[in-house]
């Protein structure tokens, strides 16, 4: 095998992974708070093959990482008082996972059988500075202000029951996806309260997947894969002809 085939194969492997990433984006087109991802591909200078007399350097296609677009998704009105959306890029709700805090933009919350605010999976939503938010079942539905203050109406006016914690990370690349719309921090740098982010009640944040861009990417991947295959074929054809002609003259 020579450089051409290896370079072509590296590109095909990367294209397959790009297809996997795009497929995941499209599958999560209606997932609340989902942020779309893209494979970062760069040329990697490789060692030329041993039997290459001219020693041409080969540049392989290499996927060096995944890029997440944390831009704001559009708001979807549900009218449910327990549905919350964050208006502010890169800010997250804090929930209590099995091993420490997890972070999410999916604010489709509910209360459990004790009146504590939780996610749909039952993880407790953390208040500002930690701790749960416990609603009083005696009073009506909660009102949540843009700065995250949760209050309920009692006999003698509004009662504050807590403040929803909304945090921000210095570097969004420190976050790792955990599934279930949750992110986990990979470093020990603590997040800081996101004072500029606003909490919107009765709304949910739709995913920021751009349907047209993803479908275009599908077409691109498909065509690129086919043309790289063509290169492999042509290269083999070239080899075959060369062997035939050289064999004849020998």
């Amino acid at each position, binding site marked *: 095998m020579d450089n051409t085939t290896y370079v072509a194969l590296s590109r095909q492997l990367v*294209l397959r992974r790009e297809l996997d990433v795009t497929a995941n984006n*499209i*599958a999560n087109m209606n997932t609340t708070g989902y942020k779309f991802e893209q494979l970062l591909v760069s040329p990697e200078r490789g060692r030329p093959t041993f039997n290459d007399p001219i020693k041409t350097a080969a540049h392989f296609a290499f996927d060096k*990482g995944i890029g997440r677009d944390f831009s704001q998704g559009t708001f979807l009105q549900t009218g449910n008082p327990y549905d919350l959306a964050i208006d502010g890029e890169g800010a997250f709700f804090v929930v209590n996972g099995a091993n420490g805090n997890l972070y999410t933009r999916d604010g489709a919350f509910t*209360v*459990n*059988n004790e009146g504590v605010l939780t996610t749909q999976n039952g993880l407790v939503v953390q208040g500002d500075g930690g701790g749960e938010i416990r609603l009083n079942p005696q009073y009506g539905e909660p009102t949540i202000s843009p700065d995250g203050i949760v209050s309920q109406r009692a006999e003698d006016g509004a009662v504050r029951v807590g403040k929803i914690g909304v945090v921000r990370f210095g570097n969004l*690349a420190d976050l*790792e996806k955990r599934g279930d719309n949750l992110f986990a921090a990979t470093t020990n740098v603590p997040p800081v309260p996101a004072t500029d982010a606003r909490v919107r009640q009765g709304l949910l944040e739709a995913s920021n997947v751009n349907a047209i861009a993803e479908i275009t990417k599908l077409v691109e991947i498909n065509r690129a894969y086919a043309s790289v295959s063509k290169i*492999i074929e042509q290269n083999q054809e070239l080899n075959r002809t060369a062997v035939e002609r050289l064999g004849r003259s020998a």
Partner: protein
Amino acid sequence: MRALRTATTGMSAQQMNVEVISNNIANMNTVGFKRQRAEFQDLLYQNVERMGAQSSETGTVVPTGIQVGAGVKTGSVYRIMTQGSPTRTENTYDIAIDGKGYFQILLPSGETAYTRAGNFAVNDQGQIVTKDGYLVQPNITIPQDTTDVSISKSGQVQVIQDGVTTPVVVGQLEIATFYNEAGLEAIGDNLFLESGASGPANIATPGEIGYGTLMQHYVEASNVDAVSEITALIVAQRAYEMNSKVITTADEMLSVASQLRS
């Protein structure tokens, strides 16, 4: 090829979405019906290259890493318990709840079910029952010679009997609330059962703090909004189509690979 399976999860999720939406639309005119919403979550991620891992001996660190997701799943289908609009019917035994609360219904099995569908009637013994004939709790019997029944905002049932000018109190309706209404278990026929997720029922008379008031001659319409359901249906259908495109693309790529001559 992972993309094939990923797109399959996407298609089945959208199918679930359409099922939920179609149930909402089918129940658009069901008294006391509360619309549902399917909530989707991303599936597990495979760490191809872990972020934060060392990339050289000098201690450089992989800044982003590669995580490839495996698709989507339905996280939950939850009920949105907002108030439906009250509709006037003029029927004596139609009662709507304005605010929080559920009527208690005694099932033939002896269990108590809860409902917001207050389109009641009386049976042959004068007891207030649901359309299926189940007794409304606490049970109230309307005397035979009644000419008029009035139910107050706070659930007091008064009757005017033949030849009597002053109204007589024959009973007091009570309603139940829950910590988590969305956690109630729907059993059909507009009825719900208490569940581990809903918490226990707290019973009180209508109009107390945290409880709704009653409206006689009204029923509560469903809280389904036709326009937003149809919009959601369009979105779900398009998403389904796009996932099928992924399958086509993956299939085409596989066929290109298999046609490579050696």
